[in-house]
């Protein structure tokens, strides 16, 4: 199935998750024309160099590297554990927190700087009105 089909009829879990005209999901970002810093989400002022109104609104990359992680064993009631929370530096800029899938929740199995890719899937959670949502996740990228 295509990524567009995976998320058809679902709402994005966060505001920086968007869908293109063909229905394909992507991570929305902003890049400062002046200093080049890349941000997750759409914004008009640069937090780094303070320039106003000089942001290019861009699609962030669907690949990156694992900067940091933790394995979460205790969480709020109803949240399935264990899971791996990671910080990923996307190729071309932007840094993002998310869940790492398809890796054993064992610190020894998780490598700093391992290449990952972004996948878009059903979040498996519904809001009070019964609407379904899609979210982004990370999986190991099998780069050789």
């Amino acid at each position, binding site marked *: 199935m295509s990524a567009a089909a995976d998320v058809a009829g679902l709402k994005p879990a966060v505001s920086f998750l968007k869908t293109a005209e063909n229905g394909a999901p992507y991570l929305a970002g902003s890049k400062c024309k002046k200093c080049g810093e890349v941000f997750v989400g759409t914004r008009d002022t640069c937090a780094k160099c303070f320039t106003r109104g000089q942001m290019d609104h861009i699609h962030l990359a669907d690949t990156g590297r694992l900067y*940091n992680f933790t394995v979460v064993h205790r969480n709020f009631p109803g949240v399935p554990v264990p899971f791996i929370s990671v910080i990923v530096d996307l190729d071309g800029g932007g840094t993002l927190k998310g869940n790492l899938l398809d890796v054993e929740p064992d610190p020894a199995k998780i490598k700093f700087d391992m290449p990952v890719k972004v996948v878009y899937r059903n979040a498996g959670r519904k809001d009070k009105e019964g609407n379904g949502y899609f979210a982004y996740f990370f999986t190991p990228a099998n780069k050789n």
Partner: protein
Amino acid sequence: MSDVYVVGTDMIKFGRFPNRSIAEMGGEAAQMALDDCGLSIADMQALYCGNLFEASGGVGQRVLREIGQTGIPVVNVANACATGATAIREGWMAIKAGVYDVVLCVGVEQMGSGLLGGAGGRDGIPTEGLLGSGTMPSVFAHVGLEHTRKYGTTFEQFAKVSVKNHHHSTLNAKAMYQKETPLEEVMGAEMISYPNTKLMCSVNVDGSAAAVLCSEKKAKELGLMGRAVKIRASALASDPYTTHNMAMMDFNAVTRLAAKTAYEMAGLGPDDIDLIELHDCFATAEIVHYENLGLCKDGEAGRMIDSGETQLGGRVPVNVSGGLLSKGHPLGATGIANIYEVTTHLRGEAGSRQVAGAKIGLTHVVGAGSACAVHILEKA
């Protein structure tokens, strides 16, 4: 501008007091601090009150209803885990500015128990556990593992912080716990967010602490210089921009900024400091703050905990009160409890946990958001 002194300070024993009101707890600490310097609420010219969870509820005014409604100005302060320290700084600034000569600062919090933090918005669906974890144990696990990534710091080294601070708290009757926790027990405790086990997470407790601040002229006039402790520096910072801060709260840059400001204001450096109360909300945090506060070079914090330099009797004892890990962490009270601890050592009144010959001490708190406060105190 006048120098500013801590002339009276105290804290209640931290614990779980579900049946007490925050006004009552805040009032008790306030009266204890007033008694410590022999002054009355009628002598206070303003109240700076730190509280986070009921920040919109006029907590300072409610404290005054408990201990005396003198009509003085009240400023209620909420600034994450730097709330209490920010209340102290507000009082310090007012005296520096010459507006008042003597003010009361109170910090109080009722915490309940359980996890703090977590990601999720008001609309849509909760994102905790879906888009990573925003619980405080996870946020500070990321802080620790970033240090591991850079310098190879181990789970065992992080755990040693907890062993040390729990040991220190056996000497502090005002700490929540007085219990040794050997390394195997800390490492074998329930894993919350790797590498933070349950015993490497600060204790959610209820508590209050207070301090009376005074100008030099007034302290002399009142005959309070004997036990007075000078505030050599008061620094507050918000998080400067760093790339990872957008996904992972950066407690390092903000601490370094506040520490640099405080050292410059005091005209002192890390080597001049005899004891430190720093923000060990999680064991991982204490390790990174050794470097952030300049106690060692970058990359040496693991070695520093291994060598025992930061335990009582070591080169620069850290968190001899037991720290947030074992004394407890009532958010709004924590920053003032740190002032109490360091002041008590500088006065030579810390009993069995006294840091011998302590002349200069530093307090540090840093809260999510981010807010960092550093104070440097010196025996007058």
